[in-house]
């Protein structure tokens, strides 16, 4: 995410790169762009897992069903508010207040709210719901609408399609969040030890990747962009805005497998997980603050704004890490100690 955003602010390719229809001059730029593709699926799946875990954790601590849900609904609403009040404007360094559209954080918030409706259901039902949405979403994309008519634009782009109002329609991303909640059932409840978590996680992930490859090779239903050959740029770069069925299954697989790798890493090199944990404790803070810093200093003050390429992007990324890690560590401590409602939400 930070690498992708560093590229967005420092890399001159963004002068002409359209994220909804990406064209890339070389494999370095392809890699830089593609690395960021895993972030949104990762966020949504972790969000789904977190919703499942928080709900059940609160219930086990004695909260009522409504209290546990209400907590999650409030958090979801807070995320929508953060999106329209802070995140939208931070891209431009707060030069303009732009509450008029949604984005990834709002999508996470809305998915969280909807997920509270099904969080008590069995993992099989949730899995069925997620797969059903994955399967039906390509059909829903065929619904024609006029983006110049506001209500049509808001309705379609909030839930199904991508566009100026919202790049992250809730329906497919909610399905990914639901898949995250299903995986959480396994990680936290069904699979009792790490061995099972690793093996099942890897197996499910790789099976999903395999199914996605089959869908892609079919070049039909579930694909949005055509591709040339297996392994080419175009093979990987199917549409992200909105995500195709291939995209959803492909990244669900890699995130699921990636969690297994993290579990392994935690056993083998626990220090790395500690570093990742600094960000993992305060993801919203990390997201909002790094975006604001980049927006203010790069876009607004015009500090190397889209003047560099790969090297400049990597340097920017390293500098941002140096700035953000201590900040995230500090805020993690503040959040732990604080009883303030807003700080607890961030």
């Amino acid at each position, binding site marked *: 995410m930070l690498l992708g955003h560093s590229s967005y602010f420092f890399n001159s390719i963004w002068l*002409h790169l359209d994220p909804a229809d990406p064209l*890339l001059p070389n494999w370095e730029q392809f890699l830089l762009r593609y690395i960021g593709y895993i972030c949104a699926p990762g966020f949504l799946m972790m969000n789904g897992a977190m919703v499942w875990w928080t709900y059940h954790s609160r219930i086990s601590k004695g909260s009522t069903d409504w209290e546990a849900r209400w907590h999650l609904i409030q958090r979801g609403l807070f995320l929508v508010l953060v999106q329209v009040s802070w995140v939208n404007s931070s891209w431009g360094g707060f030069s303009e207040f732009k509450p008029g559209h949604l984005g990834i954080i709002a999508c996470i918030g809305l998915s969280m709210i909807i997920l509270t409706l099904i969080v008590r259901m069995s993992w099989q039902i949730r899995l069925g719901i997620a797969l059903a949405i994955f399967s039906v979403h390509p059909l829903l994309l065929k619904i024609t609408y006029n983006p110049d008519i506001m209500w049509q634009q808001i309705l379609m782009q909030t839930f199904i399609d991508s566009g100026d109002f919202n790049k992250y329609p809730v329906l497919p991303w909610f399905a990914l969040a639901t898949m995250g909640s299903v995986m959480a059932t396994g990680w936290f409840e069904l699979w009792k030890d790490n061995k099972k978590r690793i093996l099942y996680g890897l197996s499910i992930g790789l099976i999903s990747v395999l199914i996605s490859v089959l869908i892609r090779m079919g070049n039909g239903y579930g694909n949005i962009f055509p591709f*040339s050959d297996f392994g080419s740029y175009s093979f990987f770069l199917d549409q992200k805005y909105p995500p195709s069925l291939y995209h959803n299954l492909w990244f669900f697989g890699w995130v699921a497998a990636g969690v297994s790798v993290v579990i392994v890493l935690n056993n083998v090199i626990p220090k790395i997980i500690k570093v990742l944990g600094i960000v993992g404790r305060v993801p919203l803070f990390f997201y909002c603050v790094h975006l604001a810093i980049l927006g203010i200093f790069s876009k607004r003050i015009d500090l190397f704004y889209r003047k560099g390429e790969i090297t400049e992007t990597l340097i920017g990324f390293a500098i941002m890490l140096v700035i953000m890690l201590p900040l995230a560590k500090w805020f993690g401590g503040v959040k732990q100690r604080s009883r303030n409602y807003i700080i607890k939400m961030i």
Partner: protein
Amino acid sequence: MMLRSLSLKIFMTFITALTSVILFLFNSGCSTRNQPPVITEDSTIVYLPKNPDEISAEITFCRRISKKTGEPTDKGTIFSIKDDAKVFAVIYLKNRNNYFNKDLMFHIDWTDPEGNSFYKKRIDLLRNDSSSTVISSISISPDKRKTGSYYLRFYLFRELIAEKKFLLTNEQVDNDLTNSKKTAEKLNAKITFCRKINSKTGKLIDAGKIFTLKDKGSVYASVSLTNKDTSISQPLTFIADWIGPDDSSFYRKKINITPETASFTISGSISVSPAKRLPGNYKLRIFLGDNLIAEEGFKLVKQEKVEKIIPPKLNKESVSAQIVFCKKISKKTGEPVSVDSVFEIKDKAKVFAVISLEKRDTTVNNNFKLTADWVGPNDSSVYKKRIDINLTDKNTTVTSSISVTPEKRKPGIYFLRVYLSKLLIAERKFELISQKKK
């Protein structure tokens, strides 16, 4: 402990598999194009496919497309911004025939001087579409475009396969550039290299194409320009571009001149000290504006490798000479007649000397001045004759003669001394006696 060991195994297996997949992707397929790109003759930057049978593209810009032929007309890379004007890009696809059974997805992306994309178009060629040309156009009216360098980039399945730059100018600049091109077409140019140009006479010294590197040495270029059309009288700006052995420019110089006559000359020079230049093949390109009007090459060589052309030292052993005196030389045979060493002084009489030169040193091939010096009894020269000879052959014969009339000569011992480049190579005496009384 067991879990730790198992985790490590799984982790290593996963990392190995992932690394293999990534390496496979990047080696085998991810990028299908070669880096760096090549630049074609028409300045298209082409990212050639790794497999030569795959599609590549060349881009041509033009103002119009002929309605009759469909071919581009008014081609170029410089266009003037004006109302209702357009720039067309005609993209020719190579190896299209190899992909008749496949849908192809292309993108054309036009970017402005700041690098921002202002118009992008996706073009899908379906499997039954045999087109091998893709056309796109943009308006270049003043309300939409500003002056500067624009790019068109052409992508196949999201991968850049060709790009080309064009310049949008205002009309005045465009006219100047057009005029510059026309003027260039009217000029004949010839480049001559030399060691030095005489500042007074303008004469080229040591002209050639091979020069030695030496301290404080220079190579001068004199460019003779001739107007085919004498109407050129406006100030002209030439650029002398000196190109090194690595084919890159190392010195560019602007030369401003207003030609007053149909023929005129411009010149320039570079230092050829070993500290600054390497041995190798160099070029000079002369441009008028952007138009190449002349190009010529020369070679710089190391001083020690140059065979010094030092004339072999001449000595008495180099060439031998034999002198024969006679009264006359047969006009028919060229042979001496009445050979003697004593001659009578009388009216209309002459003494001839036939000097036969034999070259003994084969390295002697130069031009020499041979001097035949006739010396009188008082040891003073009575007549000198200088003859240019070239000792290319082994034997050379020259003749000389003096009048031996009573008015001119006195009886006594005379000598003929033969010098070759001031070196006395032969001497022989003869005697003149008074006319015998009849």
